[in-house]
């Protein structure tokens, strides 16, 4: 069953078309990542799916309804983690989460949510006094407090330190394991690679590649780079399948203490994908 189904989505701002015919299908329970440079149309697309913006063309079904006309019961089934908000700064973490929890039919317990996002020590702090990363965690808490079936995460880990990012990833995996469908936009390729079941790259309002992290943009079929030490110097060879080469090296009793086998990173693939569309 599909959670999100988009065909031919279009959106213009003052005659400037920023989304130019996007097709997208996200299955229930899937973690799907949208990648793309700033201004590629990621946020616009996400906001149309969330019901925050109107579209100019195409059909959109989210949890079986059109977000442009869906009502409050539909909103109770989705969760949105916003980018760039600065609201409720004079409330405490616990007050804000308790308040928003009150809008939902079956919210998670407030303390549980605070624990999940790792803000237990800050629960009585005013949001004004939190760091940028801590505020983002409040955003995440507000997005998940209603037990959404589908969660939108728009660049959720911007401003997180590495440890907070790891904690956040664990949280996302836990939500996914509970069956939550997740649509994630991110600038961090490592994040997309570790979290997403599938991903798509948007450039200039179109999807230019779609696949799993391992196969995106022909990455799985790309040549492997094998590097090892030979008579004191490093030697590198590019091969389609490294099996034969390594077998040969083993047979020759070569020095394999520094052996590496690499394929293009997701970042290499991504940069070449968006580079081709500039």
């Amino acid at each position, binding site marked *: 069953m599909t959670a999100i189904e988009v065909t031919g989505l279009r959106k213009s701002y003052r005659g400037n078309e920023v989304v130019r015919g996007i097709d997208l299908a996200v299955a229930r329970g899937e973690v799907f990542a949208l990648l793309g440079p700033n201004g590629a149309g990621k946020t616009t697309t996400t906001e149309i799916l969330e019901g925050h913006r109107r579209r100019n063309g195409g059909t959109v079904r989210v949890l079986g309804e059109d977000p442009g006309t869906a009502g409050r*019961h539909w909103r109770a*089934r989705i969760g949105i983690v916003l980018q760039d908000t600065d609201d409720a700064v004079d409330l405490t973490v616990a007050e804000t989460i308790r308040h928003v929890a009150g809008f939902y039919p079956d919210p998670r317990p407030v303390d549980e949510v605070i624990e999940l996002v790792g803000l237990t020590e800050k629960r009585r702090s005013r949001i004004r006094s939190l760091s940028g990363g801590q505020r983002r965690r409040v955003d995440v808490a507000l997005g998940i407090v209603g037990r959404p079936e589908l969660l939108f995460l728009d660049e959720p880990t911007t401003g997180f330190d590495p440890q907070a990012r790891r904690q956040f990833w664990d949280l996302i995996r836990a939500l996914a394991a509970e069956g939550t469908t997740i649509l994630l936009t991110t600038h961090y390729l490592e994040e997309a690679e570790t979290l997403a079941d599938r991903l798509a790259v948007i450039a200039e309002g179109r999807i230019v590649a779609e696949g799993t992290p391992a196969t995106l943009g022909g990455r799985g079929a790309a040549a492997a780079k094998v590097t090892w030490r030979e008579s004191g110097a490093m030697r590198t060879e590019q091969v389609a399948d490294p099996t034969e080469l390594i077998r040969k090296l083993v047979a020759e009793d070569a020095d394999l203490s520094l052996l590496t086998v690499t394929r293009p990173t997701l970042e290499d693939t991504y940069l070449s994908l968006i580079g081709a569309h500039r």
Partner: protein
Amino acid sequence: MTTAALPPTMATGLRRAHVELLQFVRDRTAMVFTFAFPALLLLLFGTIFSDSYNEPGVTASHVFSASMIAYGILSTAFITMGSGLAMDREDGTLKRLRGTPIAATAYVLGKLLLVLALGVAEVVLLIGVGALVFDMSLPDAAHWLTFAWIFLLSVVACSLLGMAVSTVVKHARTAGAILNVPVVVLQFISGVFIYPPSQLPSWLMGVASIFPVKWMAQGFRYVFLPDGMKAQEVAGQWELGRTALVLGAWCVIGLVLCLVTFRWSERDR
């Protein structure tokens, strides 16, 4: 798929009112400016002007104490509502709420309850200044009843109009300046700052009588001044029936404007 019932709108509205009040009380600047300013002006006007009228025991300070209640309501209802909504639109409050199952009615209810609470507190402050500093005498029960309906109609009309006007405010930081224009202008022509209003050119008095402020101020003067003071009014009467009509009409106009103009986010470009 869960189809559990959403919390009732009335309950959600009360939750909104609670956090609105918490936030207002914790924001000291808003507290001081919204509340103290009308009282400060009342202290100044009441001290500076010493006009007397053909009515024994009534001083200019009593007239200002009564009329300035209209200012207090403009400040707490019209300005708080207008700038509050512009701020909510800008800082993401409305966008956040829009992504949850809250009803727009619950949000508006929360704001109205906030404004009502602030309005009551402001009016208590102004009447307190009038009674304690300027020796204004307090009215009997029947006059308080009149006070109650004028107060309620004024708060509702001003809040709804503030909400409607906020949709033309582009940036929250300019909201105060924009909203203060009608507030100050109307007070000059509506018998709040300049009294008796018959000093004004008659066309200006005509303009003022279209808007709610004149009727609010006149109504509050009816409540707090002796009956003989009606001779100072433009019509020589208190015109309570007309006051109810005009304020009621503005409530309806405000409501219609809100329904037509309300939007959750900045304009979708």
